[in-house]
């Protein structure tokens, strides 16, 4: 290597070094500048907070309510915030649905059950900057107490349920704070499926909802569904009490499987085992033999069926009816269908708000019915199906697709979603069903359908111990297991009939929903045991 090169290299090195050093210096300078900025900011903030927070006592997080004191304060419900209360200063307890800060203002939407109202907090003589900042940083779903003045608004607030008023907040306190990260967002949970796909926004799938049921139940749709379900139960009770029925409670821990051995849950019972009742059938009938004439019961029913369908649960609420009649089991059918029609009418007349709320997320056709209820015979149904091209035997049971097709055909001709199918073939019914007197191949049994799906299976029961024994033997049932049942008919039993419906299924079909888990608060199925 030549000398010049070495020299040149040295010079280059020096230059490189100086380049590197330059770079390094630049970087350091930047860092320092940033640090200085930050410090300046902090300082400014410090200054801010140090600035006189004149609203310190008008906001904050309350200590946990341990009943420290009894405040004589009236809290107004969100649904009662109407223009009549304009200019009044009131306290409201609600959840934070959303909060949005915009410069010196913070917009909150407060929610209580299905009702929402807009609240405004602006920096001014009553609220400081720190207070607005505090409000903007509150987590969603936190429960807060707000003292505010109710103000009328010129333009309707479309996005809230209380459209004519808004709250101007004076004081804001947190009663119960929510964690910042929610497992699901309530707006997503209420979004209709199609809209979610179209606009690329999220919807929540069923499993997530069911895993976080507590939050999912807060949505407007869930509130509406379960209020309507409560209405169904109440109308059922009221109608039957008015017809002279007596409400009974039947045991759920029983010694022998009532309907058939396969689908029962076994529980250990001291030194032996017992079963969870599949239906209150046996006990309803025993009550009739005990001269109660007309009984009904509302209680859980346990079916250990390993079916993972849209309409099966392992535990559901059964609404069961049993009635003694004078001469013909149609008296009982008329009673049951009249009860159902009264329930439908009650829902149609008193729960329209709830039905509309559910329809927003799950649109469906309104439920149609006839009064008195349409009753078709099994032979007519088979003829209608055959005319529509289905091939089936006269004594074959209806498969689920055939039931749905029949529902559509009946809807087309009579325009009703609810009807009764009478005189089923004897071969497909349980052993205690009374055979038809004129045709031994048929039976005095009936099914009721809503929107093409079966909701009730009932029949005239055999009330003669001897015939019952014969039929049981014909079905190869162990007589020892049902000895107590047969015995109850040996001491004079009136002719009787009845049937039972599932509360969740009826609610689901009335609203036109597609999965029974949506109408069961904490559903149980072969794959789900919690919450």
């Amino acid at each position, binding site marked *: 290597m030549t000398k010049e090169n070495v020299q040149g290299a040295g010079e280059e090195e020096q230059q490189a070094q100086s380049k590197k050093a330059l770079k390094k210096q630049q970087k350091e300078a930047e860092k320092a500048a940033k640090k200085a900025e930050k410090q300046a900011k902090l300082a400014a903030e410090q200054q801010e907070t140090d600035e006189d927070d004149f609203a310190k006592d008008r906001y904050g997080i309350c200590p946990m309510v341990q009943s420290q004191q009894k405040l004589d304060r009236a809290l107004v419900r969100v649904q009662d915030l109407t223009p009549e209360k304009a200019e009044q200063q009131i306290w409201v307890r609600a959840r934070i649905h959303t909060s949005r800060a915009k410069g010196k203002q913070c917009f909150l939407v407060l929610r209580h059950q299905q009702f929402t109202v807009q609240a405004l907090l602006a920096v001014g003589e009553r609220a400081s900057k720190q207070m607005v900042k505090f409000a903007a940083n509150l987590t969603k779903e936190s429960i807060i107490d707000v003292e505010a003045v109710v103000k009328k608004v010129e333009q309707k607030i479309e996005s809230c349920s209380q459209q004519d008023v808004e709250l101007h907040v004076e004081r804001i306190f947190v009663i119960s704070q929510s964690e910042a990260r929610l497992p699901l967002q309530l707006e997503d949970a209420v979004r209709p499926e199609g809209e979610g796909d179209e606009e690329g926004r999220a919807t929540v799938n069923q499993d997530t909802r069911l895993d976080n049921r507590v939050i999912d139940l807060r949505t407007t749709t869930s509130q509406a569904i379960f209020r309507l379900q409560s209405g169904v139960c109440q109308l059922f009770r009221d109608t039957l009490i008015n017809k002279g029925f007596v409400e009974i409670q039947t045991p759920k821990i029983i010694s022998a499987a009532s309907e058939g051995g396969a689908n029962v849950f076994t529980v250990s019972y001291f030194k032996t085992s017992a079963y969870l009742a599949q239906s209150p059938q046996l006990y309803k009938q025993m009550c009739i033999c005990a001269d109660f004439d007309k009984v009904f019961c509302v209680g859980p029913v346990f079916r250990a069926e390993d079916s993972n369908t849209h309409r099966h649960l392992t535990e559901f609420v059964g609404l069961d009816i049993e009635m003694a009649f004078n001469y*013909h089991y149609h008296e009982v059918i008329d009673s049951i269908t009249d009860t159902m029609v009264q329930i439908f009418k009650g829902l149609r007349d008193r729960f329209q708000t709830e039905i509309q709320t559910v329809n927003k997320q799950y649109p469906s056709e309104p439920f*149609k019915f*006839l009064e008195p209820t*349409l009753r078709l015979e099994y032979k007519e149904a*088979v003829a209608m199906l055959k005319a529509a091209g289905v091939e089936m035997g006269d004594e074959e049971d209806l498969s689920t697709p055939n039931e749905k097709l029949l529902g559509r055909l009946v809807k087309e*001709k*009579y325009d009703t979603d609810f009807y009764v199918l009478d005189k089923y073939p004897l071969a497909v019914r349980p052993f205690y069903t009374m055979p038809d007197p004129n045709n031994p191949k048929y039976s005095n049994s009936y099914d009721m359908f809503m929107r093409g799906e079966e909701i009730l299976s009932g029949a005239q029961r055999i009330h003669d111990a001897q015939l019952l024994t014969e039929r049981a033997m014909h079905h190869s049932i162990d007589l020892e297991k049902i000895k107590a049942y047969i015995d109850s008919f040996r001491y004079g039993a009136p002719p009787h009939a009845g049937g039972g419906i599932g509360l969740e299924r009826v609610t689901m079909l009335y609203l036109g929903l597609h999965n029974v888990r949506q109408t069961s608060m904490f559903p149980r199925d072969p794959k789900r045991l919690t919450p």
Partner: protein
Amino acid sequence: MPMYKVKPVSPADIKIDLPTCMYKLPNIHAQGMNCGEHALQNGEVDPALKALEERQDEVLRRLYELKATVDGLAKTVTTPDADLDASTLSRGPAESVFRATADLDSLLGKDLGALRDIVINANPAHPPLSLLVLHALLCQRYQVLSSVHVHSSVSAVPPPLLSCLGPRHIDSYARQRFQLGFTLIWKDVSKLQMKFNTQSMYPIEGEANVARFLFRLLSAEPQDPVLATQMDCWIDTAVFQLAEGGSKERAVTLRSLNSALGRSPWLLGQEFSLADIVCACCVLRAGQTTSAPANVQRWLQSCQNLGHFDCVYPLLQ
């Protein structure tokens, strides 16, 4: 010089058993071969094939016959001095009305073992009076299972409308014992509608059209084409001018009714018919029967005396 001859390898007359499962083609070399042999592929004529051929011949023959008939008709219709002179059509004695129970199978289709249910959706604000009269007539001829329902689209219906089809039949719990079903549903519909066999029939709309359908079930339609046309004419007059027309049109119609009834006891002559039912119902519904012309009042009285209109009067209040 003789040619080279090869000794035959195999004897000339070997018998070959041809397989019977193969399809034979006619021998294109031989002539005058019996083609019949190839028709007998399987050794016998397939009877299904023969039947098919016969059916085809039959269909073709009927087609030709039909074509000939249509051509004949076309000729008679299009030529001005046709052989048929409408004015010489004899007005034969009208057969007694409602003479025989019609064959329901031929009118309504084969009985599939189920009750043949006629469903009528009507608006409670406009009860179809003529259909109620026809229902009463049907009940005299057949075993009819009648039922009245209220649809959920209507909140309440006055009690007379609920019992307009008469008391419930004692045997109504056994639907199989009836020949015909008559289901009246009070529903919020703009136009009266009848549904029968939804798979093969469109719904029929309008009270007059449903009335014509039901009247046919009584097999009481006048056979004479002139009378039939007059009947249709009266029905249309009743619907469009009496029921839907203004007071002027109603007055005109009442006058023409009056003059027609001056000549004969009933609108079509000596026999009661659908024209009388529909016109009477429209007149009764329009009200003011006491101010109607004399013949009309006499005729209304005769209708009432027949007894079929008993179901209508309670609804007129």
